[in-house]
């Protein structure tokens, strides 16, 4: 750790101040109600903040390289998960199938009454 000693003298308060400013921007930005500004300020800044915390507070850079690779791999697998599932979960229709509107229930009126008790119970919780 001795050679990294320099780095640990980082002015953490300054970094914190930067984070707070970024927070303010990310709250203020979406108030403009312009889509791309919302996206950039809300989510772009979240990534910037996360990067700052990971690098400056968690000192990911000081750990051996493989630690970073592991973290990135985890994120990549999550991307992979979204890539593999979006066609079913995000999309409401696809090749030869479509999702029924939530209200739609192919259920006869009387039977719906029977079945409805369970559902009604759940709604009232």
């Amino acid at each position, binding site marked *: 750790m001795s050679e990294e000693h320099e780095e640990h003298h980082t002015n953490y308060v300054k970094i914190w101040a930067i984070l707070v400013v970024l927070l303010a921007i990310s709250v203020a930005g979406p108030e403009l109600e312009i889509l791309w500004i919302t996206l950039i300020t809300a989510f772009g800044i979240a990534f910037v903040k996360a990067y700052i915390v990971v690098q400056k507070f968690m000192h990911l850079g000081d750990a051996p390289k493989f630690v970073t690779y592991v973290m990135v791999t985890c994120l990549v697998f999550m991307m992979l998960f979204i890539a593999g599932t979006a066609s079913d979960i995000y999309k409401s229709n696809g090749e030869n199938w479509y999702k029924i509107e939530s209200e739609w229930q192919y259920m006869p009126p009387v039977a719906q009454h029977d079945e409805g*008790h369970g559902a009604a119970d759940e709604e009232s919780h």
Partner: protein
Amino acid sequence: MTRQFSIIRVSRGVLLACVAWVALFAASQASANDMARGKQLYALCAQCHTENGMGAQLYLAPAIAGLDEWYVNAQLLNFRSGIRGTNWQDVGGLRMHPMSRWLKSDEDVSAVAAYVSAMPKVDPPAVVEGGDPVTGKALYATCASCHGPEGQGMKTMNAPPLVHMSDWYLVSSLEKFKAGIRGWNPQNTNAVMMRGMSNLLPNEQAIKDVVAYITTLNVQEQP
């Protein structure tokens, strides 16, 4: 369709020896008396109708404890043969129809019926609201001719008892009869008759009223 394949023929000899061995175990399944058999088979029924026959509305299973043996027997046979519970709108019936097919022989059916009828009667909690028993009493006069003034049922009229029944089940049955979801199959003559009778109840409120009245009979019968 399935052709006999050679591996079977080869293995058959080996099999026979092994089967004989396993059959030693199998021999132990002597059919005990009806009641024990009925209890054994009721294990599946208990999944929905619960251990004491109280039924569970969540599973669309009415109370069955202490129902008349002839009625349980007849209804199980009806379900099994598909003359009850196979209307495409009858959600509860479509769940019961396959379950009844689990009872392969008529002996099993009567064993379960005997077991169910011997169970102590229970009073399932009342869940239907908004019925007026006073109006219901007047409406019930017609029902009483078959189901009896106390709702005790009459075997001679093929009318099951109505007391100690889940009230939600009575409501849904009447609604099903009215809508032709039950009693649509001409082979099920009693149900067809009941379908006709159910039309004497003009609307949903009348159904609730009459069921509310039947529920009071339930209480009266309590000592």
